[in-house]
């Protein structure tokens, strides 16, 4: 059974694009067919991450100016390059959102009236179906816009698994809790699974010696994660430490493939192998 995973957050800059891209690459490297869709339509960044300029964008597909085959770029060769021709290599297709302001406005405005808006929504729903039925994707991974916005809600609605990504040290616990209660409940009651994904967890600068949480010296990061999980009612699926080499690197790119021994790759490996996302 195919899985559709949406990466979401309450605020921006939590590392959704980085984790989604690395997760997609790692799954593809393990032999899965993966479709990665940049649907952070208000501030798309995946095009920059993969350094590609596609002929057609997801926006073109939604406005009937392109077919799915035009917008999903086959980046399997990038995976294969790192995998040294491993027979296990699966597939990675990536669809990019256009960051041109006219395109963002067009999508945000729902292309005019309600019937047009519904048409675009239907095209978006159809994209997921096509990626599963036509591309035989094992995983469809969607990088969504943060917060409660039209296209982030729609992205979450078509997903089976939601990763609510939070950046340690810059948490808005109140906002995140409210969003989890207000929005995620609408999805989880119809079978969607939602998980917390904590990123840049503090205290790992010296590996294997977790430090007390800065904000509350009495509380360790493990305690804090538990508290957060309890407060939001969501299971913590992964707590990815803050790695200075990634954090301050000029441009991180598929660390999981480039440095498979890096602790970040090991963390993602755990996520890839988690029962919760197994197909």
């Amino acid at each position, binding site marked *: 059974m195919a899985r559709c995973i949406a990466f979401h957050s309450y605020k921006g800059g939590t590392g959704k694009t980085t984790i989604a891209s690395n997760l997609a690459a790692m799954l593809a490297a393990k032999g899965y067919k993966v479709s990665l869709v940049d649907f952070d339509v208000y501030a798309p960044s995946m095009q920059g991450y993969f350094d590609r300029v596609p002929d057609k964008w997801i926006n073109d597909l939604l406005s009937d100016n392109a077919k799915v085959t035009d917008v999903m770029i086959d980046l399997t060769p990038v995976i294969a390059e790192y995998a040294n021709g491993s027979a296990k290599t699966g597939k990675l297709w990536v669809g990019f959102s256009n960051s041109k302001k006219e395109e963002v406005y067009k999508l945000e405005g729902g292309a005019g009236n309600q019937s047009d*808006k*519904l048409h675009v*929504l239907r095209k978006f*729903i159809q994209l997921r179906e096509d990626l599963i039925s036509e591309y035989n994707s094992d995983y469809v991974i969607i990088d969504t816009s943060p917060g409660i916005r039209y296209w982030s*809600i729609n992205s979450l*609605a078509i997903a089976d698994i939601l990763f609510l990504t939070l950046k340690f040290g810059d948490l808005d616990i109140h906002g995140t809790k409210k969003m989890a209660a207000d929005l995620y409940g*609408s*999805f989880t009651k*119809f079978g*969607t699974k939602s998980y917390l994904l904590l990123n840049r967890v503090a205290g790992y600068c010296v590996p294997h010696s977790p430090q007390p949480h800065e904000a509350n010296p009495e509380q360790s990061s493990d305690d804090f994660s538990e508290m957060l999980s309890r407060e939001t009612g969501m299971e913590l699926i992964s707590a990815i430490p803050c790695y200075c080499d990634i954090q301050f690197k000029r441009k991180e790119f598929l660390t999981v493939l480039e440095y498979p021994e890096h602790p970040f790759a090991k963390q993602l490996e755990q996520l890839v192998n988690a029962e919760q996302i197994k197909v």
Partner: protein
Amino acid sequence: MNSKGAGGPHQPPSIPGMSELSNVAISPGILLLVGPAGVGKTMYCRQFLVDGLATDRCLLISAELDDRRLRQLFSGDYITTRNFRFINPVSSNNSSLSPQKKAMTKSLSAALTRAREFISEPPRDSSQNEKRVHRSVRVVVDSLTYLQLICGEKLVMDFVLRLRRILSEENAMAILTISDTDQQIKNKLGALTDGIIEMRLEEDPKGPLNRAIRLLSLKRTHHKPVWMHFNIGDDGGIVFGERPSAVLLCTLCRKPVSGKPFIYSDFSFDTITCLETYRKLEGAYGTSVADTGLPFEATDVSFFFVDIVGLSNPNFSVKKQIQKIETLNELLASCVAFKKSPKEKRLILPTGDGMAVGFLLNPELALELSIELHQKLRMFNNRKPADDQIGIRIGLASGLVFAVTDMNNMQNVWGPGIILARRVMDVGDDGHILLADNLAERLIPLKDEYRRIIKPISDSFEIKHGQKIKLYSAYSHDFGNSELPARASRK
């Protein structure tokens, strides 16, 4: 499927493609045909008249046509029959295109006189010499847009109103055409007519433009508007395309449902994934899911239904009638109860001579709005002469409705809630605020004030289709009407 052959000798006149356009019979009345230039309005009207030439009196009123163009439009055989009459309303007294208002008024009056004479002249059947036979009347006014350019809006509105009076005495079906560019006059005419037919042109990248038609609205009758494609044949006849086949489409993805549909709240889905995705969207957006264009499930709504009493009184000018409608709308919009209800939690449906407002949250708002509107209206009427005063009747009820957004991007609602409010309102006279039991009995226990002002007036009042309800009236010294409604006292 060709529309020819519609209408029998003793049948009320029908419009071309009636069975395709509506799932209910269309009673004689005036229909407004709206569409862009070149869509085929004139040819549709031509078909309407041609269909009735053998049996009905057919009258064409057009300021655009002269004899030559008339012959081009119809064959000579048609226009020489005694069942057909053509009137050019601006050349009837040889004052054609006179800019003087007086001359124009005279010209239009003369045209109406000629129309009345033709419509009401003793009908004769040539095969049964001098014997009176029943004749239905078909009238076309093509086009009001052109007429308005010549005469101005006021004279056109007056012309339509007077024509309406003439036609109301006959078993007449009339079609008035207007271009869709003038929304304002279209709305005003919509209030004076019994239904609206819409035409549109659709771009087809692979071929020529497609023409489509639908019966957008039909007063006091629920029907489901469906766009029908049509063509204009070489002989000028209207040829309808096949009605879309009755394939069940998935509410979410619009794919045909293969196999047994997954049903939720009267909506059908192709797969369980579609159903679940719909429910997730509905859960996230709430009733605002309609903003995405998707229908939402039946919702319990408290309805406020109001109309102006005696608005169609022929002694009032159209201008006065329109002023009254506008004043009512303004007063209503200024009410706190109206303003404090969040936009996404209320439904507004203009009904021509009134309005229906549905409150999705607080059922008290329907009553609060009624009381506030009455108080504002009382102040307004105190300052006005009798003719300018506005009398209203209000019906309140609650119940389930479906809300859908139609292809015209209009908000539509249908369900027992709105029907009941309408029927309750219809019972009332000037000043009444009547409540159906289902709303009154929810409100009365809430506040002592409601106990004082909401009084039962009939334990078993029969409304349409034998449905019986307990009827309540809300009144006090400054709102409502403490008298029994005339219809309730007759029962």
